[in-house]
């Protein structure tokens, strides 16, 4: 070969390579730019080209919402409410009935004396409920705000032309939001929210005798509730905690895992024999094989989502429906994967068994099963792990499991600490299933 031809050949080679190494990223980048425009992450007017994309379609980043969300995930609020018609005062955690302080008992930052109630929000913020549906709020660095209901309207001492942005004022309502808490005044009620960090009442609600006792107290201290042993009673009050419903959450979590387990293994059991009929080298009849392949495609193509809806008519809401939806889809996936694995079996081993005079069944048992088992098993275990995650979503549709609790809590958007709790539980369970399937894989496939 002459130098010149060798050079030319190498130049051509690198020309091609250069084209490829620029071309591929360029194609991908172009696509991503297209998507950015399609999703309105980028808009023409960012580049000075006028466009009529409405504001609502633009991507926005609402920091305030994000902050509220994060704050709500790790804190709780206690409501102090006065009914402006009856004058009754109530204190309740998260404003819920089951978080209400028993009559006559108030937290130490609330001082109720007759018709006057002094609420110390901390850092010098003090709210005082006065008789006659009036109140004052001392805001350090601003002054004392007064408010009162007169007839149908709210009257305050805030200058109308200079309302700070942390006060939201109308003739029927005054709302003040500070770092220490929130206050709202309407004709019907006066309400103060005081924020505290933590997940309150996670262990016991206020009506439980164990509320406020530490672990040490309960385990080794004196008997708290005369009717019950400490551990038994504390467990019962914790487990049946009406605010957090640990027992229901545990059941929901269990239902989710159950759906994944039944669906995955059920599908594997159904798919295995059928896969033999769909594998080129085992199927006696081509039409059968073709038909089965299409059935698998159908089962998989319909997707668990749609199966869930279709099956909920026949089986109603609950974990069985979810399990069946997973079973249907995965029968499709497994059917395809198993039959592919069967098509890739090593004929040598089968020949070896056949040559000894083994019957057909023995041939499958010793020639085929041992070599496909590890492949199938590892696929099944991999699906088990990912189905645990899918089961949360399926549960959210069919009405079962932790997925329903989670999505409902998210959609109503107020119980973010519960959302956090569920997310943590789901993540833990999925990670456990991941390790479990990894452990089983090593144990069963690599052999002890």
């Amino acid at each position, binding site marked *: 070969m002459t130098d010149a031809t060798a050079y030319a050949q190498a130049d051509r080679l690198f020309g091609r390579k250069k084209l490829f190494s620029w071309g591929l990223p360029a194609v991908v980048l172009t696509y991503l730019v297209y998507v950015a425009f399609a999703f309105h992450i980028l808009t023409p007017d960012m580049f000075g080209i006028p466009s009529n994309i409405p504001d609502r379609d633009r991507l926005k980043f609402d920091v305030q919402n994000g902050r509220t969300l994060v704050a709500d995930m790790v804190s709780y609020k206690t409501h102090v409410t006065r009914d402006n018609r009856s004058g009754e005062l109530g204190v309740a955690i998260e404003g819920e009935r089951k978080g209400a302080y028993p009559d006559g008992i108030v937290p130490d930052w609330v001082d109720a004396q007759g018709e006057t109630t002094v609420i110390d929000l901390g850092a010098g913020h003090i709210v005082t409920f006065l008789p006659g549906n009036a109140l004052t709020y001392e805001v350090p660095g601003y002054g004392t705000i007064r408010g009162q209901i007169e007839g149908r309207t709210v009257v305050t001492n805030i200058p109308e032309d200079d309302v700070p942005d942390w006060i939201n004022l109308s003739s029927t309502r005054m709302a003040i939001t500070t770092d220490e808490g929130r206050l709202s005044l309407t004709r019907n009620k006066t309400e103060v929210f005081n924020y505290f960090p933590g997940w309150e009442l996670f262990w016991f609600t206020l009506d439980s005798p164990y509320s406020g006792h530490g672990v040490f107290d309960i385990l080794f201290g004196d008997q708290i509730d005369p009717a019950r042993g400490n551990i038994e009673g504390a467990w019962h009050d914790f487990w049946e905690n009406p605010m957090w419903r640990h027992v229901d959450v545990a059941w929901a979590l269990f239902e989710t895992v159950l759906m994944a387990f039944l669906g995955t293994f059920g599908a594997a059991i159904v798919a295995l024999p059928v896969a033999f009929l769909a594998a080129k080298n085992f199927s006696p009849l081509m039409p059968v094989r073709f038909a089965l392949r299409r059935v698998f495609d159908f089962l998989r193509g319909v997707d668990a989502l749609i199966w869930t809806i279709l099956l909920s008519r026949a089986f109603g809401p609950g974990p069985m429906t979810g399990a069946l939806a997973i079973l249907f889809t995965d029968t499709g996936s497994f059917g395809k994967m198993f039959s592919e694995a069967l098509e890739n079996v090593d004929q040598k*081993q089968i*020949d*070896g*068994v056949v040559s*000894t005079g083994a*019957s057909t069944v023995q041939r499958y048992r010793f020639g085929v099963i041992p070599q496909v088992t590890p492949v199938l098993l590892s696929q099944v275990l991999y699906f088990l792990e990912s189905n645990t995650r899918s089961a949360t979503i399926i549960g959210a549709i069919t009405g079962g499991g932790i997925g329903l609790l989670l999505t409902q809590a998210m959609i109503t958007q107020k119980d973010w600490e519960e959302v956090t709790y569920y997310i943590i539980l789901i993540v833990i369970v999925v990670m456990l299933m991941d390790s479990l399937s990894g452990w089983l894989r090593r144990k069963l496939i690599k052999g002890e």
Partner: protein
Amino acid sequence: MLVVENLTKRFGRNAAVDSMNFSVDRPMMLGIIGRSGAGKSTFLRMMNRMTDATQGSLTFEGRDVLTLRGRERRNWQADCAMIFQQFNLVPRMDVVSNVLHGTLNRRSTFATMFNLFPREDIHHAIDILERMGIAEHAAKRAEALSGGQQQRVAIARALMQDPKVILADEPIASLDPMNAQIVMETLRRIHEEDGRMVIANLHTLDTARRYCDRVIGMRDGRIVFDGTPAQLTTGVARDIYGADDSFSEDATSTEIRDAARPALTARAAATA
């Protein structure tokens, strides 16, 4: 005791084995040589009934092998053990189980389904492994053994069948010279000690010469040589392999000639 008449196998229009005729009157060690595609494997597979013949007949001790069906055919397969170039063991199963597969024909399908082999079979299997010199690997998975050891497991499986004939399809082609020697010697010993007939496809002349009582040479599906090892001259070999004058036996030799002067692997030195 073995009579092959007019045996033919066609794949489509191509005859892999073309009217083969020969007979054998006593258990012996029979070598079949021929280049790749000559039809050696096809013949063995027909004899073991893993492949159906297109025409002709094959009779063994009066049994018309090619017409056997179902149960009878499987019984014949049990009588006629097969050893493969690639060992064809079940790699993920332990060595003893692999050997026990030799009894599948005798045991009920149901019992074997659950890997329930009788204890005396297990002991017998281990005895055979001992005879093969690999009893200490009994509990290992087959895939954990070296090639030579695996081939000995395959022979053990064959012996477990207690067969009348052992068919060996290039049993040493994937082994190094040392292992090849061990395996061939084992086969010879089985033939001599147990009096079983052994038919081995071989791809090297010197092996055939050294271990066989009779050699059949095939080319393009036909028998082109049938005689004693002594009659197998280089000229005949050129005929069988269709080679020209540059053909030298050394190029395919795998024999270990002398401990002091180790094997000359011409190929290793020649490739650049």
